[in-house]
């Protein structure tokens, strides 16, 4: 990624110099932010960094995210956004939607706000409702959850006509602590888990909905 962006502006100036400079930059990247040779390289680096920075839209400056701990709940948790592709009735759409669904679940664990999760969960999804109820209970009486964030490193969807769309998902959840208003633990922390799930999906008038969530055993 870095080397591809760097070559374009440099090649215009001088081919010989570009190769040398780019080589130095690549090396600096490998060292993981170790101080590189200053001089010619630093100028090239700033110039090269500009186009890649403008390519990714930076969100409006907001207060920094702070995970929950014993002193209080998480702050400024990034709000999940449904990507455009997730609105299509395709394999890619189903996969992007599944990823989004787990982001709303992770968001609910971290904030106690399960509205977005409910919006994309079908009324008959027993597991979805169970998760929401558990989060509501944990967050009641002034308590908060520390940890519990979810990652989905592997999602494979199958979207075929004549059968319900579904996705195989790897769900990794961090250790969960429930804190009382005084910061003490409500119960023993729930250990981290690494679970396989099958997500049954339905594409309706509002787009994808999680209708049938199960566990792969």
């Amino acid at each position, binding site marked *: 990624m870095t080397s591809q962006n760097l070559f374009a502006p440099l090649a215009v100036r001088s081919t010989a110099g570009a190769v040398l400079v780019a080589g130095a930059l690549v090396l600096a990247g490998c060292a993981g932010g170790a101080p590189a040779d200053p001089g010619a390289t630093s100028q090239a680096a700033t110039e090269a960094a500009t186009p890649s920075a403008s390519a990714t839209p930076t969100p409006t400056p907001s207060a920094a995210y702070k995970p929950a701990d014993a002193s209080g709940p998480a702050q400024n948790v990034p709000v999940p956004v449904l990507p455009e592709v997730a609105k299509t009735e395709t394999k890619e759409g189903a996969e992007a939607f599944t990823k989004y669904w787990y982001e709303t679940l992770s968001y609910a664990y971290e904030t106690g706000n399960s509205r977005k999760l409910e919006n994309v969960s079908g009324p008959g999804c027993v*597991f979805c409702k169970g998760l929401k109820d558990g989060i509501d209970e944990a967050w009641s009486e002034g308590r908060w959850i520390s940890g519990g964030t979810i990652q989905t490193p592997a999602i494979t969807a199958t979207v075929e006509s004549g059968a319900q769309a579904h996705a195989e998902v790897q769900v990794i959840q961090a250790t969960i602590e429930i804190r009382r208003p005084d910061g003490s633990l409500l*119960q023993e922390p729930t250990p981290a888990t690494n679970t396989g799930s*099958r997500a049954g999906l339905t594409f309706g008038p509002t787009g994808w909905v999680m209708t049938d969530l199960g566990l792969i*055993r």
Partner: protein
Amino acid sequence: MKALGLKVLCVATLLLVFAPSAAQADVSIGYEDRGLSVGADQWVKDASTGKLVRAEPGTVPTDPNEYKYELQCHLGGGDFDTPCLARQMECKDREDGAKGIPVMWLSRPRGVAGAVWAHHSGPTCLYDPKPEDLLPRIAADIQKQFQNLPVNAGAVVAQPSPHTLRGAETNFYAEAAEQQFDITMFGQKVHVVATPVQYTWNYGDGTVFGPQPSMGGPLPQDRWGEKTRTSHAYASTGDFQVVLTTSFQGTYSVNSGPPLPIPGQGQFSAPPQAISVWRSLTRNYADDCNANPQGQGCPGAATGR
């Protein structure tokens, strides 16, 4: 007498209802825990088609994850993470001089395409000059070791016993429990936990029931003769040897590492339990034994089976 018995039963039931609410139950909050507690659908990967199918009800649960370990601080190839090495776990050399090597355990769900390995637990110590292939060596041998462990299949209890009646429901149940063993394999301390999961009854008259997941349970004496999930009615009289075979599922943990599933189940049989099946005869007695001491039911009458 019967009324008194009912009263006692009611008190016991009330106590049972009160007991759980006294202690505050934990909030089942984790993703997986919650799914299991609300009865989320369970799916298994069909070995031949590779497709997900609903798990049959009554399927014996197995660990859905697989495990491996990596040397602690190892980045791959010959590279190690130097800052990590500085705070690496110290594995004391064992009394026999074997060198300890710290490892980190990873796990991932089986049956999910493209699943990645994630940290599970550790570090723990392994004692082997070639820790890289130690686990496969243990895994290849563990099932044989498991089947050879002195696992107690459990006790067989029959109600009534040792005598029962032809045509009557005789209630059989097993008393089997989880058992733990410590063995040594390839120089490692291996801790094995065996859990009873399925039971097969051979009633000795040619009837075999199981394997099935119920170990049955005791009946109060005033209900003997009722049909239960594990009861059996003998069609003929005689002496029978009842054999219980219990299937155990096992996990093994290497030097305090995570409990790893032992593939397959171990079958263990309990010693045979003898039961005598008698027939009952109903007769009406009208004789005066003083006048006719040989009359039916009188002390001088001939008795038979």
